[in-house]
């Protein structure tokens, strides 16, 4: 049983980084595919489409920071806490990156038709980013309570 708890503790340590990276891969891929299609259809503004498609990569960075904040000597007293914070934060980052990718793809699709709404079309993606920041900040705050 102790070994299982310790294994979960390790998963909690690496979880934010791994799950955040998985989410970023999927999100960037979705937005990137949309950007590639928009390149065919537009004459200008290619740089900004590629720029938007990189938006979901921030979740990986948040994951790395949370991983370092949780990093400590693992023992039976702190493993469960680390697992709970790390895995839940990782899941939040992963889903936010995937859905941010979808929002970015929609933004690319509409701003291709009407370039003047480019900024406004990014609002949903920015809101999703906000939720990722919540998960990130509060993971840092709560990690201070986990015994070293």
């Amino acid at each position, binding site marked *: 049983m102790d070994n299982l708890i310790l294994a979960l503790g390790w998963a909690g340590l690496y979880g934010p980084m791994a799950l955040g990276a998985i989410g970023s891969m999927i999100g960037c891929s*979705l937005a990137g*595919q*949309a*950007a*590639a*299609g*928009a390149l*065919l*259809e537009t004459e200008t503004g290619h740089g900004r489409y590629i720029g938007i498609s990189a938006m979901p990569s921030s979740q990986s960075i948040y994951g790395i920071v949370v991983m370092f904040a949780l990093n400590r000597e693992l023992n039976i007293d702190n493993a469960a806490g680390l697992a709970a914070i790390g895995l839940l934060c990782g899941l939040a980052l992963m889903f936010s990156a995937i859905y941010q990718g*979808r929002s970015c*793809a*929609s933004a*690319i*699709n509409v701003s*291709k*038709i009407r370039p003047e709404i480019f900024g406004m079309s990014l609002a949903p993606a920015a809101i999703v980013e906000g939720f990722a920041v919540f998960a990130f900040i509060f993971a840092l705050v709560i990690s201070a309570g986990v015994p070293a």
Partner: protein
Amino acid sequence: MTYYTLVTALPHLPPLPQCKELPISRIALDRRLSMLSDADRQQLQQAERLYHQGDVSLQSLPDQTLVRDWQQQLQQLESPLIRERIQLKLEWQTLLAALRYRQQGRIGPEHFSGFGRWTGQIRRHWHEPLFGLDTALPFLAELQPLLLKGHSGELEQQLNAWLWKDLLFIERSVQFTLDTVICFVLRWGLTEKHLKSDAVQALEAFQHLTSQLLNTPAITQHIESAFEDLS
């Protein structure tokens, strides 16, 4: 499979009344649709065939055989959403056919066969102006006067504009799927038909004008003298 690249590679189709030319040719569209898998392309072709009824060989078949053929082809479509859109189009086609048959007095209700949920209602209420569908389909009331006046071109344009909006609504509600692509291609087909019908009208007007001009004595004289100079 995801369709993100293909959907964003499709151009914007302006609403039918504002569309003066196709934003993408069929050749260029087909080149972009080559991103689809073979199975997806089959689904698309099947949907297009049913929606636009381009198969001339089928037009000579009796109505019942046609309806059976449509039903069989519809079964091969995997997407319930696209099936519903095509059913709606075929139902409207049935309604317009009933209005035309009745106006021409070619057949009675007992011999009428059509597609979809309104066929029984049409037979039962054959002698009512709008087959008792007034409340269910208020748009039908807008179309009937056009048919009575014989403005079949305008009637088709109005119906196409309505179907175009219906497809756009579906396209926007299911972003980045095969249904999005199919709805776009069906809308492209409606736009092409709309522009072609406009071109036919323009050609007719041009021919009328040229025949009028050619019958003008001064112009005829001028042409004759030009031919004499040439010879």
